[in-house]
């Protein structure tokens, strides 16, 4: 420890605490402001029809976004099933096997780039290789596009979290004769559990709000979801259409649907955190 007067060290500490509290409060205030605006403009749209009915054209009252809710849930679920396992395994490779080797540095580099790709490029990419080849828009293409977005986020957060687990834990388990994969999945995972869940939840949260990739793959539909191999109704493209329209009731539904997305992510987040909580041994 540097030989500085106790007084200076404590004042610096106090000063930093004040700054950090103020900054944190400012940040939280701004974020709260957004939440408040979305809630205040969106709650008005929350009535039974909103959740149970199909959309109606402007001027026809009582429409809802029921099909979009189902569509988004399905597409997001499928995207999660595609992106999360692959992402976690890739993250394990980076943290446990590859470490600082040339190959894993390359993969890490590429993952960071993939994370920074505008979602519209991913949407157009999936459009080119899937939609054009298949000759139709589909929910599957949408799920794949979202899965590609989820993939690097989960991989990198998994890697970063796993790296924070001290090596001593791995070494003691290996010394007991456990196979490598059991050490990783059983022990290392358990200590990094909270962080891993955060990474996955962040990825899901991010894709829940993405419009551009779905615009080129799943498109949208005013009807019920009968098959994922055709345009599928979804919340984000619906929000986009409604928000860009001149009609006050549609705009209110756009805010309402956004509020709904936030609720959805909140519920998934709470459930996931409860499910993966630290259980008393």
């Amino acid at each position, binding site marked *: *420890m540097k030989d500085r007067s106790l007084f200076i060290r404590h004042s*610096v*500490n106090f000063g*930093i*605490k004040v700054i950090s509290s103020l*900054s944190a409060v400012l*940040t*939280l205030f*701004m*974020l*709260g402001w*957004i*939440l408040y*605006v*979305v809630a205040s403009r969106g709650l008005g749209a929350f009535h039974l029809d909103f959740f149970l009915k199909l959309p109606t054209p402007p001027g026809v009252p009582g429409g809802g976004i029921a099909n979009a809710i189902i569509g988004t849930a399905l597409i997001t679920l499928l995207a999660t099933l595609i992106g999360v*396992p692959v992402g976690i*395994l890739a993250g*394990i*490779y980076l943290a446990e*096997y590859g470490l600082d080797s040339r190959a894993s540095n390359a*993969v890490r580099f*590429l993952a*960071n*780039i*993939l994370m*920074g*790709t*505008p*979602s*519209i*490029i991913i949407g*157009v990419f999936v459009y*080119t*290789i899937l939609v054009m080849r298949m000759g139709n828009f589909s929910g599957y293409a949408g799920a794949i596009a979202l899965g590609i977005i989820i*993939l690097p986020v989960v*991989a990198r*957060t998994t890697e*970063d979290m796993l790296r*924070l*687990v001290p090596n001593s834990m791995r070494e003691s388990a290996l010394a007991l004769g456990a196979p*490598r994969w059991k050490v*990783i999945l059983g022990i290392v995972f358990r*200590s*990094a559990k909270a*962080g891993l869940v*955060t*990474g996955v939840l*962040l990825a899901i*949260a*991010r894709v829940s*709000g993405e419009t551009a990739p779905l615009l080129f793959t799943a498109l949208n539909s005013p009807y019920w979801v009968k098959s994922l191999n055709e345009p599928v109704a979804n919340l*984000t493209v619906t*929000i986009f259409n409604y*928000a860009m329209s001149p009609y006050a009731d549609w705009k209110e539904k*756009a805010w309402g649907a*956004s509020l709904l*997305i936030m609720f959805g*992510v*909140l519920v998934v*987040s709470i459930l996931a955190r409860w499910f993966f909580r630290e259980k008393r041994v």
Partner: protein
Amino acid sequence: MLSLRNSRWQRRTDFIFRILTVLCASVIAFVLVLIIYELFVNSGPSFKKFGLRFLVSSIWNPVTGEFGALSSIFGTIVSTIIAMALAVPLAIVTALFLTELVSPAISKLVGIGIELLAAVPSIIYGMWGLFVFAPFMSNHIQPALARWFGFLPLFSGPPMGIGMLTAGIILALMVVPFICAVTRDVFLMVPSVIKESAFGMGATTWEVTSKVTIRYGLQGIIGACFLGLGRAIGETMAVTFVIGNDHNISASLFSAGNSIASTLANEFSEASDPLYLSSLVELGLTLFLITIVIQSLAWVWLRRMKRKMRVTL
């Protein structure tokens, strides 16, 4: 569980698992390489016509077929710099606040709120930005900045509320939840034994944080920053609502500009002329180039930092 397993079985399952992870890691590489390949192929016509001129010209004229990426590159870089300069310190300090200065219960609650904000669709950020925040900027913040710092060319021009500065701030708000959530988890994962030994030696909270926690979790924090950077650089909807979408370059943060991602989002679906499309694709490729440059610089910097701090991970 840990009975005397057949070591052949152990080696075989370990081998399979390792192959699995390698496969998944290569999926990332494969997808990205495929994307870049497609972009490359489709930007052929534009590259042939403009060559390197594309990167230094700021003319963007779909009618005459003259395309230059400079204003978009400028806008992307400036808005990202503003966003990261605001978001990284704020996020880290907020994470610090949540882990060290408040009770775990409040920390968890607020943490959930912050994650929620990561789920807000970007178009909502755009709408909030245009209809709520921009008037606030033009009525309060921008005139104040102009009064105090107006002598700088950075803050000149009429306070319209929309423009580069507003876009940067909105991006910062979008990025903070990501960096903060991950940094908070990183802080929580620092083994308490390390922190306690520092406290035991008489270190203050800030000293423990800066010298122990951050150093231990540096890689994770950097990773979180990259997560945020990825969002900032590729964000389309929110930016296009508030940046003004003007293909020109100006020194003032109050003026309108445009970014690569927003140009792509705005013009891609409507472009039917092959040269126009190809130029847009080349614009996308340019974004990859910028990301690669930033990444390489960050990697070099991180190397030096690690050597300086002598961090062992």
